[in-house]
C-alpha cells in the first residue's frame, strides 16, 4: 500500500511537473526577496562595525589645535608649540578617564607638495593593540623613519606603488606598503586646507620611529563600545556620555573632539543601509503577498481538478488522512524546496548583489552575514503554512463529499450568462470568439482573481520601482539647478570677517565677482524622528535678505510661491518640517534653541534652516559673523587654476563648485537605481511565472475543449487564440489595476523613505506608466510563445474518450 501510494505521489509530481517547478519558483522568489532585502541592511551595518572594530578604529578622536591648523611636526619644534599639542601627561590624563579603554597618540597634518595636498600621519603602526591602525593591504610596515605607507588609491587619492620614492619637505621617503584606513573607507574626496582644497595623497609614518614626543591628537576607544554596533542607539548613547567626560579633559587644551557620527564614510554608509531597510519594509512584503495568493490558488485548483482520483482512492477504502497526505506531501515538497532555495538566494546571493551596489563611493568592508533570520524565516513559515493550509482545506472539502459523488465527474463548470450580455450595445457587436472569451473570463472567479492579482501585483511593483527611479533621478537637477542657484561657495575662517571685512586679497577677488553674498553657516546635529541628523543653519544679513533668493530659491513646493526671508522667523526645509510635523507658524525647537517657523521651502537634498542675522542672534545668542561666500559666476568652474587661486587667498578654508556637488550627489542615487533594478527584475520574474502558471493551468483544465476545437478543424493558431485572448484580457485588467496600485505604492514608499536630508519627489513620468504596462505585456507575450508548442501537442483523441 505504501509502495503504491508513493508511486501515486511521484507520478503526480511528474504529471504536474511544470506546475511543480512554477510553484517552487514563486516560493523561492518570494522568500528570497523578503530575506535578501531585510537581511542586507543589517548585514551592511554589521559589516561596517566588524571592520571598524577589527582595526580598533577610534570611537573618539581628540584633535589638538596643531592638528586643526595643520602645523607640521618637527623634532626641533620650539617649546611654545607644546600648548597646541598633546603631551604624554595629557594622554595619561585621558587614560585615567573611566570611559576610556585605549588612547593612541597620533601626529597628523596636511602639507602642500608641488601644489598637491598631502596628509601626513605619524601613527603607531607596530602595536597590534593600538587604536586607529590602518589595514595593511600590500607590502610591509616601515622599519626605518624614512620608510612610508600610502593609503590605497581612489578617484581622488594618488596611486603610489611599493618601492616609489616620495619627496616631502625636501626629504625622500620610500613607499614600503599600501594600507587602507577604516576611517576613510569612503572614496569621496577629503577636504583639505592645502592644495586644491581636497586631499591628493595620504601617507603614514611610524610614530615610534619618528622621535616625536608631542602629538597633534589622540585616537580613543571607549570601554564597552566594541560590543555595540556603531549604528545602534546604545552605541550613540555610550559615546555621547564618554564624549562629554573626555571633552572636559580636552577643554584645557582647546581640543576638538570628534566621534564616529561625524565621519563622512560611516554616516553615509549607515544612511545607505537605512534606505535599504526602509525599502525592504514595503517592497518585499507586497511581493510576498502576491506570491502567497498565487500559490494558494494554484494548490486549491490542483486539488479540485483531482476529484476523480480522490473519489477513486476513497472508494478503494484509502483512509482520508492518507489521501490528504498525497496533496500535503506535494505542497510541502514544493514549498520546502522553494523556501530552501529562497533562503539560500536571499541570505547569500541577494545581499552580495545589493551590497555591490555600494561599491562606488566606498572601499567596501568585507560583507558579514549576520543571522537576520527573522524576516526570512517568517516569510518561509508564512509560505509553508499558507500553501499546506490551503491544500489541506481544499482536500478536506473534497473528502467530505461521498465517494459516489466524487466519482461522478462534476458537471463542468456551468456556462452562465454574464452581466455584460445585459448591455446589448456592448454585447451584440462583439465578435463570437470574444463573447466566448468574455464568458470564460468571468466563468472562473478564482482563476480571474489569481491572474489579476498576480499581474496587478507585478505591474505595481514595476511601476513603483521605476517611478522611484524617476523621482530619484530628478533630484540633483532640481536641487542644484532650480533651487541652489549659485556657482561656487567659499568657506572662510570664522575670525576672518570679525572686523567687518575680509583680508585684502579676498576682498579684491570678490570685487571681480560682484554677484556674491556673505553668509554664516553652521552645521548642527539635531535629533529628528529618533535619528541624529546633520542640519545646516544658514544666516544672512537682513540687508541681504531680498538678495538671498537669487542664490538659494526659497519657495513652497506646491504653489511655488516665493518665501521671503525676514525677521518673522526661520524658513526650514520640507524634510525637517515633514518629519517633525511642523507647519508655518509653529515653534521649532532643536538643541535647546527655538525659532518660529515662518515658511517651509522646497528642498530635496540636505536639511537647512534659513534665517536672518537678527533671528540668528536671538535664537543662538551669538554674533553674526560671515564664514561663507556664495558666488554666482558661471565662468568659474573647478580646475587647478581657479581652485588654487581661491585657496591661495588669505582666510579661505575651502571652496566648493556647484557642478562638482551635483555630480557627486548623483552617486548614491545611482545605487538606489541599481537596487530598484533588482526589485523590478524580481517583479518581472514573478509576473512571468504567474502568467506561465496560469497559462499552464488553463491549458491543463481545458485540454478537452481545446482538443474538441482541433477536431472541429480549428488551426493551431486559432486554438491558441482561444486561450491567449482570455489571458490577454485578464492581463489588460491586471495591468490597469496594477498601475493604479503602483501609483499608491510609489507614494507610500516615497513618504516612507523620506528622511530629513533627502526628500524624494512624488512624480512618475508619463512614459514610465506605459513602460511598466508594456513590460508586463511583454512577459505575457514571451510566456505565450513558450507555451505554444504545448498547445500544438494536445492530442485530439483526448477529446473523444476522456470523460472529464
Amino acid at each position, binding site marked *: 500500500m505504501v509502495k503504491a501510494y508513493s508511486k501515486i505521489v511521484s507520478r503526480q509530481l511528474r504529471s504536474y511537473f511544470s506546475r511543480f517547478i512554477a510553484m517552487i519558483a514563486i516560493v523561492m522568489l518570494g522568500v528570497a526577496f523578503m530575506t535578501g532585502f531585510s537581511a542586507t541592511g543589517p548585514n551592511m551595518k554589521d559589516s561596517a562595525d566588524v571592520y571598524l572594530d577589527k582595526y580598533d578604529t577610534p570611537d573618539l578622536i581628540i584633535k589638538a589645535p596643531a592638528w586643526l591648523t595643520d602645523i607640521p611636526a618637527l623634532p626641533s619644534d620650539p617649546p611654545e608649540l607644546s600648548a597646541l599639542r598633546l603631551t604624554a601627561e595629557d594622554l595619561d590624563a585621558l587614560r585615567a578617564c573611566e570611559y576610556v579603554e585605549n588612547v593612541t597618540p597620533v601626529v597628523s597634518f596636511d602639507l602642500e607638495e608641488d601644489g598637491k595636498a598631502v596628509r601626513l600621519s605619524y601613527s603607531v603602526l607596530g602595536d597590534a593593540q593600538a587604536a586607529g591602525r590602518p589595514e595593511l593591504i600590500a607590502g610591509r610596515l616601515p622599519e626605518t623613519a624614512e620608510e612610508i605607507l600610502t593609503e590605497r588609491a581612489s578617484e581622488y587619492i594618488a596611486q603610489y606603488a611599493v618601492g616609489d620614492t616620495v619627496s616631502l619637505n625636501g626629504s625622500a621617503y620610500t613607499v614600503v606598503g599600501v594600507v587602507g584606513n577604516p576611517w576613510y573607507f569612503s572614496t569621496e574626496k577629503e577636504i583639505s586646507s592645502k592644495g586644491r582644497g581636497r586631499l591628493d595623497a595620504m601617507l603614514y609614518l611610524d610614530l615610534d620611529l619618528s622621535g616625536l614626543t608631542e602629538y597633534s591628537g589622540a585616537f580613543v576607544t571607549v570601554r564597552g563600545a566594541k560590543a555595540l554596533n556603531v549604528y545602534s542607539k546604545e552605541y550613540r548613547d555610550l559615546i555621547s556620555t564618554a564624549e562629554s567626560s573626555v571633552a572636559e579633559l580636552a577643554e584645557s587644551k582647546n581640543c576638538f573632539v570628534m566621534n564616529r557620527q561625524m565621519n563622512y564614510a560611516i554616516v553615509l554608509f549607515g544612511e545607505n543601509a537605512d534606505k535599504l531597510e526602509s525599502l525592504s519594509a514595503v517592497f518585499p512584503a507586497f511581493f510576498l503577498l502576491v506570491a502567497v495568493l498565487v500559490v494558494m490558488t494554484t494548490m486549491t485548483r490542483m486539488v479540485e481538478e483531482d476529484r476523480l482520483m480522490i473519489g477513486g482512492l476513497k472508494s478503494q477504502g484509502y483512509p482520508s488522512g492518507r489521501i490528504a497526505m498525497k496533496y500535503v506531501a506535494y505542497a510541502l515538497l514544493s514549498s520546502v524546496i522553494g523556501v530552501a532555495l529562497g533562503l539560500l538566494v536571499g541570505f547569500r546571493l541577494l545581499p552580495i548583489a545589493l551590497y555591490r551596489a555600494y561599491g562606488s563611493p566606498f572601499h567596501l568592508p568585507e560583507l558579514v552575514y549576520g543571522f537576520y533570520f527573522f524576516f526570512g524565516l517568517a516569510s518561509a513559515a508564512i509560505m509553508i503554512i499558507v500553501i499546506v493550509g490551503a491544500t489541506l482545506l481544499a482536500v478536506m472539502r473534497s473528502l467530505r463529499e461521498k465517494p459516489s459523488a466524487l466519482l461522478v465527474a462534476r458537471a463542468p463548470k456551468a*456556462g452562465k450568462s454574464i452581466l455584460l450580455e445585459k448591455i446589448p450595445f456592448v454585447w451584440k457587436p462583439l465578435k463570437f470568439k470574444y463573447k466566448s472569451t468574455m464568458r470564460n473570463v468571468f466563468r472562473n472567479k478564482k482563476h480571474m482573481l489569481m491572474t489579476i492579482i498576480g499581474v496587478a501585483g507585478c505591474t505595481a511593483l514595476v511601476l513603483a520601482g521605476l517611478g522611484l527611479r524617476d523621482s530619484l533621478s530628478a533630484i540633483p537637477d532640481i536641487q542644484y539647478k532650480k533651487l541652489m542657484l549659485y556657482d561656487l561657495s567659499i568657506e572662510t575662517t570664522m575670525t576672518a570677517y570679525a572686523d567687518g571685512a575680509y583680508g585684502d586679497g579676498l576682498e579684491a577677488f570678490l570685487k571681480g565677482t560682484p554677484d556674491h553674498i556673505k553668509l554664516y553657516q553652521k552645521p548642527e546635529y539635531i535629533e529628528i524622528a529618533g535619528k541624529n541628523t546633520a542640519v545646516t543653519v544658514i544666516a544672512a544679513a537682513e540687508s541681504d535678505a531680498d538678495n538671498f533668493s537669487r542664490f538659494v530659491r526659497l519657495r513652497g513646493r506646491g504653489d511655488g510661491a516665493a518665501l521671503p526671508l525676514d525677521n518673522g522667523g526661520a524658513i526650514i526645509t520640507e524634510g525637517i518640517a515633514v518629519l517633525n510635523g511642523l507647519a508655518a507658524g509653529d515653534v521649532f525647537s532643536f538643541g535647546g534653541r527655538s525659532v518660529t517657523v515662518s515658511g517651509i521651502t522646497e528642498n530635496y537634498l540636505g536639511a537647512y534652516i534659513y534665517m536672518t542675522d537678527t533671528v540668528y542672534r536671538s535664537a543662538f545668542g551669538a554674533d553674526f559673523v560671515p564664514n561663507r561666500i556664495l558666488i554666482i559666476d558661471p565662468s568659474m568652474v573647478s580646475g587647478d587654476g581657479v581652485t588654487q587661486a581661491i585657496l591661495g587667498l588669505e582666510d579661505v578654508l575651502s571652496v566648493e563648485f556647484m557642478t562638482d556637488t551635483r555630480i557627486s550627489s548623483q552617486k548614491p542615487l545611482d545605487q538606489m537605481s541599481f537596487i530598484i533594478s533588482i526589485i523590478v527584475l524580481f517583479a518581472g520574474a514573478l509576473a512571468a511565472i504567474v502568467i506561465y502558471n496560469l497559462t499552464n493551468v488553463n491549458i491543463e483544465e481545458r485540454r478537452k475543449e481545446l482538443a474538441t476545437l482541433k477536431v*472541429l*478543424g480549428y488551426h493551431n493558431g486559432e486554438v491558441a487564440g482561444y486561450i491567449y485572448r482570455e489571458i490577454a484580457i485578464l492581463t489588460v485588467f491586471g495591468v490597469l489595476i496594477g498601475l493604479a496600485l503602483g501609483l499608491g505604492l510609489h507614494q507610500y514608499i516615497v513618504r516612507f523613505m523620506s528622511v530629513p536630508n533627502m526628500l524624494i519627489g512624488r512624480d512618475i513620468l508619463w512614459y514610465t506608466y506605459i513602460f511598466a504596462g508594456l513590460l508586463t505585456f511583454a512577459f505575457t507575450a514571451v510566456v505565450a510563445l513558450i507555451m505554444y508548442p504545448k498547445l500544438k501537442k494536445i492530442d485530439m483523441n483526448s477529446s*473523444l474518450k476522456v470523460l472529464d
Partner: protein
Amino acid sequence: MSEGNYVVLNNVTKAYKMGDTVIRAADNMSFEINEGEFCVIVGPSGAGKTTVLNILGGMDTLTSGEISIAGRSLAALNARQLTEYRRNDVGFVFQFYNLMSNLTAIENIELATEICKNALPPRQVLDEVGLSERANNFPAQLSGGEQQRVSIARAIAKNPKILLCDEPTGALDYNTGKMILRLLYDFCKNYKKTVIVVTHNQALKGMADRIVYIKNGRAERVELNERPTDIESIEW
C-alpha cells in the same frame, strides 16, 4: 444509393513503436463505403476502431496505404491540410458530446459553422434536431440526450461530406439512444449524406446499409444490408 466508392481504405496500416515492439493498430485494412450509406463499423475493444475513426477523421496519419474521401486522397496531406479537411469535410459526433460548456446551444453550433465554407444556418439545424426552444441554454442546462442533439446539430450544420460518430449512444439511456440514432439516420437519408458510426454495440448493425467488422486491425468482413431494420425494432 449512388454509385462510386465514396470512402476508400486500401491497405491502410498504422504502426506505433512501443519500445522494441511495433504495434499495428491498423494492419493492411481495406474497405469501401458508398456515398449516402449508413455504415456501422463494429468490433471488440482494441480491434482498431479508434484508429479507423482517427484516420477517417483526419486526426491521424497513416504509416502506409491509401485512403480517399470523395475522390480526395488523405494520405499525402500535411497537418494544415488535414485541419482544413476536418474543418470543411467531416462532421463529428462524440460519445460525450464535447460541447463547450460556456457556450449556449446555438453558440456551440456557431463555433463550428463560423469557420467552415458551406455551413447551413445554425438556427435551421437546431430546429431540425428539435431544440429551437433551447437555443440559449447552456449545456449544463440540457439533458444528456439534448446535449447529444446539439452535438449532432453542430456536426450537421457544417454540411460535411461524411458524418463520423463515435459511440453516439454510449452515454445515453435506451430510449434517448434510439432517438439519437433516428436523427442520424434521417440526416443520412434526407440529405443523402454518408454517415459512419463506430461502435462496439452489435445491435446497431440492423439499421445499417453496410457493416464493417473490424478485428485485429483488419477489416475482417464487410456486409451489405439490403433491407435495414427499422430503428424502432432494434433492441439492445
